[in-house]
């Protein structure tokens, strides 16, 4: 649980780097992330890039559907790091 929380915090921070106005407090972690935060494909790629750099977890294109929400993304990273 601790590990998951710290990963979640990290992901939130990285999201804020890309979308500084994002309201992370009120974000439903199970809602579709890109839709909620208005992240386009470029933003999403930048996010995955910074995640890869910070966690060494490289998310391939084929797994994009598995990381749709903040929770899914967090879980995915946790399981691979």
């Amino acid at each position: 649980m601790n590990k998951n929380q710290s990963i979640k915090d990290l992901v939130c921070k990285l999201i804020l780097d890309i979308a500084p106005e994002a309201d992370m407090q009120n974000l439903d972690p199970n809602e579709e992330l890109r839709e909620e935060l208005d992240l386009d494909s470029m933003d999403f790629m930048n996010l995955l890039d910074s995640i890869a750099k910070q966690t060494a977890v490289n998310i391939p294109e084929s797994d994009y559907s598995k990381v749709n929400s903040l929770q899914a993304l967090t879980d995915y990273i946790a399981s691979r790091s």
Partner: protein
Amino acid sequence: MKTLTMPSFGADMAMGSIVKWNVKPGDQVAKGDIIASIETMKGLIDMEVFDNGTIVALIADEGDEVEVGRPIAELQLSNEEYSDNKSEETLLREGSPNVAVNSSSSINKIPVSDASAGQTVTNKTSLETTDSLNKNVHVQITQQPKISPAARTKAIRLGIDWRLLPKGTGPDGALLLDDINIAKKTLAKPGSGHVKDPSEAMREAIAATVSQSKRDIPHYYLQLDIVLDKALKWLSIHNADLDPNKRILITAVIFSAIARALNAFDAFNGFYRDGHYQPADSVHLGNAISLRQGGLMVAAIHDAQRLGLVDLMDKITDQVTRARKGGLRMSEMQDATVTVSNLGDRGTDSIQSIIFPPQVAIFGIGRPRVMPWVIDNKLSCATIVSISLAADHRVSDGHSGARLLNKINKLLQTPEKLI
């Protein structure tokens, strides 16, 4: 018109002196004629001319010492129609009013492929021939909208894009301080006394642009639904083992197809000004980047038709980052010859856009979506993207627009060729 330059008669020759001209302006010359005697370190050497034509002007005089490669004469080639299209050198020497009055940025701004006004060219891959250089310079010089330094400074300070303003009240339609002041008043909301913040100013600038566009440009609209599966499949294979920052987005593939297709369709890539259309000689693809806080910036990807997919993707990424952080360069803001509007994969099925004057076309890319589709007479599924084209009917017709869209489609069916 051909500019004759001091020839090199040896690798170590840097200068030559014109001892004697054998011709004068007006003389007809034939290929092989000796037109001058040149003194070099190696002695007196005869200079031949390699074309048939008429000597128009002698730029260097007898006795002048001239560096190798510098102009010494102008020759009107026989197989050219004689026109008033004088070379840049002659124009400058004669002090043509268009050349003299214009700010330095227009004299340095040679053909559109020269990246930026006033900046040195860094990575030009090919040299323009003298003829095309001269032709483009002449036209550029007469067509550059004019503005006084004071007006330009004020316009920049107010965030007004002066190139989109109607003609000013100065000589040759130059914009003056008063014109900018009037423009500012026109753009200002009536009754607003408060200081505008940048996003408001941007909104107003966009408003002015699109209003003028809809007023002045007779738009026609075409759309083509394109099957994207081949491109997507090729892309996923390409991206499979790559780090996120090396992956190519489908956007880049579509941009590349558009840029390359435009290469053969002059009437959709250039500028319409003062009742006259001038096709650009390279495709500087304007990428319409939306900003998080609202608003739009169009950043030009220079020579997009020449970039491979990897380079194009890098360029796009870099520009989007800089656009959102406010680090775009002036040349990127000014140079777009055509624009692409892309609402992204969570946008709408299609987008019909408004042309940014003085451009004459704009593409809209809808979101790729899976649809039922008939393939080989059978019902199947395909990922479809709708690409729309809005174009200026003063310059092109639906028939060529359709051919252009079809060409883009063709290119997208062979994505491996775009790399």
